[in-house]
């Protein structure tokens, strides 16, 4: 049975322990950043940043809110990135955990195409075209540990476990949060393995919180590409 994250943003204090834990476990280099007039940094996910806490200020009816969204790959149940790649050597799904894993062979894919296919705008490429993103800490998980970000989260925002257990928790929290925050919802719970609980409209947190219909996923154009892929790949490898 696949593993599922339940991320309760209503409990998140934006401490970013998870963001650092992710870098630490994967030994990812820090990016050279500047203060851009916000706490949020680095400015975006990147080849060396798999987890990023998005921070947004908003004011409704004179009430100020500061929203935090610890963004990461959703480990889609039917991952468009995997589908688009069509190359098990580059992108595969771990049967045991459901983790969608990018390997060094992603170098041989059309990076922009993969990025384009992701409804959550997650994968990022290196200068040489290799792609990277959150790997569910699959090495930890398959050895009985929690993902680094979950392990570090002290507020109970980050949770991890079997699907049944996590969806039950998500439903229970949703019911509880709705008592105070009417707009609370679970994001794309049926199609992903990383279920977010949000209290405001998705766009208030970040552009790519939900899979916006039509704009992404496996488009007709990509389906076409998929058919000719074996040839293009062969060509690229020759070159």
């Amino acid at each position: 049975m696949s593993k599922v994250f339940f991320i309760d943003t209503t409990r998140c204090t934006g401490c970013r322990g998870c963001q650092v834990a992710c870098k630490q476990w994967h030994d990812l280099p820090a990016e050279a950043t500047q203060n851009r007039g916000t706490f949020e940094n680095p400015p975006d996910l990147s080849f060396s940043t798999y987890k990023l806490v998005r921070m947004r200020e908003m004011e409704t009816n004179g009430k100020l809110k500061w929203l935090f969204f610890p963004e990461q790959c959703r480990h889609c149940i039917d991952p468009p990135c995997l589908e688009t790649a069509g190359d098990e050597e580059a992108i595969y799904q771990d049967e045991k955990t459901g983790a969608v894993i990018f390997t060094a062979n992603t170098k041989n894919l059309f990076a922009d195409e993969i990025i384009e296919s992701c409804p959550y705008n997650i994968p990022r490429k290196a200068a040489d075209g290799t792609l990277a993103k959150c790997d569910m800490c699959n090495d930890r998980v398959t050895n009985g540990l929690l993902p680094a970000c979950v392990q570090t989260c002290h507020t109970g925002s980050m949770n991890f476990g079997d699907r049944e257990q996590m969806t039950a928790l998500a439903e229970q929290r949703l019911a509880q949060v709705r008592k105070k925050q009417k707009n609370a919802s679970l994001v794309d719970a049926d199609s992903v393995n990383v279920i977010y609980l949000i209290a405001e409209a998705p766009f208030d947190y970040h552009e790519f919180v939900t899979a916006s219909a039509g704009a992404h996923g496996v488009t007709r154009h990509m389906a076409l590409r998929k058919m000719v892929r074996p040839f293009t790949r062969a060509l690229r490898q020759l070159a």
Partner: protein
Amino acid sequence: MTNHWIDIKNSDCILIMGSNAAENHPISFKYVTEAMEKGATLINVDPRFTRTSSKADIYASLRSGSDIAFLGGMIKYILDNKRYSEEYVALYTNAPFIVGKKYGFKNGLFSGYEKMPEGPSLGKYDKSQWAFDMDKNGVPKMDRKLKHKRSVFQLLKKHYSRYDFKTVSMITGTPEADLKRIYDTYSATGERGKAGTIMYAMGWTQHTTGTQNIRTMAIIQLLLGNMGMAGGGVNALRGESNVQGSTDHCLLWHIWPGYLKTARASNTSLAAYNEKWTPVSKDPLSANWWQNYPKYSVSMLKSFFGEKANAANEFGYQWLPKVDDGAVYSWFDIFDAMYKEKMKGFFAWGMNPACSGANAGKNRTAMGKLDWMVNVNLFDNETGSFWKGPGMNPASIKTEVFMLPACVSVEKEGSITNSGRWMQWRYQGPKPLGNSRPDGDIILALGEKIKELYRDGGVFHEPIVNLKWDYETGGAYDPHKVAKEINGYFVKDVTIKGKNFKKGTLVPSFAFLQADGSTSSGNWLYCNSYTEKGNMAARRGQKDAVNNIGLYPEFAWCWPVNRRIIYNRASVDAKGVPWDRKDWVVYFKGEEKDGKYVSRKWLGDVPDGGWYPLQNPDGSWRDDAKHPFIMRKHGHAQIFGPGRADGPFPEHYEPLECPVEKNYLNPQMVNPTAAVYSSDADAHATCDPRFPYVGTTYRVSEHWQTGLMTRTQSWLMEMQPQVFVEMSEELARLKGIQNGERVNVSSARGQLECSAIVTKRFKPFKMGDLVVHQVGIPWHYGWRWPSTGKEESANLLTPAAGDPNTRIPETKAFMVNVTKL
């Protein structure tokens, strides 16, 4: 903390004010979240909307430096609307005490005031004018009905009658509706069975009225009956993992270990010293715990000087330094003296005063006037390298600087004591890197060398040669030996309370310490932490106590005597029955016969003394009981606090530097006893058009202290790369400042460049017709890292002036200007 971290989960209403717990004490939010899940309300009051505010049910802003006005208004609200717990107030606090006729309060001054033109204190009080009226037996006169005109309760009412909504709102800039909502919500915890807690930190202490900020809240907690309760108390969130421990073990100049007093020059003998500092109560119902003072002071001397200490030589009392009466030796005074070239040498041990101290520019100049300085730290820092810092000319600085590399906490064994007073033993992880050493090793070696140098005599060599200094094992510092020394030993075979103890065994608890030299204890408060049963702090038992409120009595150890919630006998009524039957702390379950208790038994936490409750089940009063606030001379918690330097009741005064021409509550602008220094580096500017905005300093989650351990860490620098100044959109518009651009921030003392964060989270304050802007800067930076040298310390701006009781600087409220580069 009177309570502890886990206990926050038991609260019904959590007020976070004077701290930013979500960002600076992240783990606390585990328990805040748990409480909220069970229905608790979270209130946050802060000049700026923070990550803590983002999680609060109710948020309100207030102008920095107006907390006493805010809380004074709450006291008035509680009294006006009878939200107080009358039974608790009348029984356990000094509200019924009758204050003497000499007490008075007029024009913002309490009776007995005297100006001190020579400074650094602006003035002082003759506190004897605030004394209680005593009956013929020497017990304070009381009116338990709280009606007497001069009862503390009536005086309190009168004092805060001036703190009405309009005035408070005018001072704080908090809208009246927000004040009302918060007062109403918080004071609901005055109900029997409900508990409210306060989580505060440097946002309250770093003011010229710091101590009184906390006193005001303590009064509220007493009125609402929240002291001693699970989910209640007054909880200081310490800014460093071992601040509690270092304070307990006398980090500060005016106390010896265990909060014993530093000897004054006028305490000419041990007998005089003990007499001076041992309080006497004539009330048979007052435990007056400090009556044991001589047992603790003598045991401490025995621990310092071992066999060299005996009754004939006053246990070595004369070997300890005495401080001049009336003189103050705080951090301020040290740097002031250094600045005035009155000091030759300086150990900066685990500190970074070039960045951490208020008016850091003065500190940096001062260090250049030393002959030598030893910097003991993990890495070189702005202090060790001050001589090559910005604006310094190395050629003209004579100070010789030595660096002693210390290892990091995880590389050594020992204990820390957290905010909740839990002493936790830590094992050594990796071995120290390179030639770095544990602090204990460095101190031990230093002591040995000094002893060697004095072996053949020298000026006043006795204290040094007689100092017991046997803390090594196999040539290295042994933390177990020190921990045992702190706990204390029987130094001869003795029989105490019918029990025989062998010489050389560890004392089981401070109840067994003696004033005759038969026991030693480095710190009486820690006696019980390392006994013949083992190292209590190293325990990791996960079992909760019978009341199931998260006391975990077998996990680590807690002072005093493993009591997890202090003043816990105030959590029960006169008959020993908990006010809160669900989350009870202690419960009296002695046997009962004919309406009287006939045996003693308390369940739950270690009670504050195991005496009988004040009343029998039939309502008759017992004469063998003790009032619950055992550390107070009269056994009652102090709503009226006649021991404080600046008055028995907290009063609102403006910060030393403020944006308003007038104090709306009294004619005194500034705390009339504040400590204010006057060297040429101590410029101050109040209501000065050059510095029109309120400035404050704070921390962020991503950095720690002066950033020595975090500015060198690339993952943390990635998140918070540069020093910033946060300001409202309104102020940014006014100054034409764009979000993210670099700006200059200046005060009467210094300036630095910052990245502007223009945010909705700061809003201008409306104080009557006046609009006041406030900005805030984190103080984690310094020129040494990042390598650009451009990210400087916010303490270049802050004033070295502060609270008269503690000499903590007013770094939370001062005046600045912000300009485009």
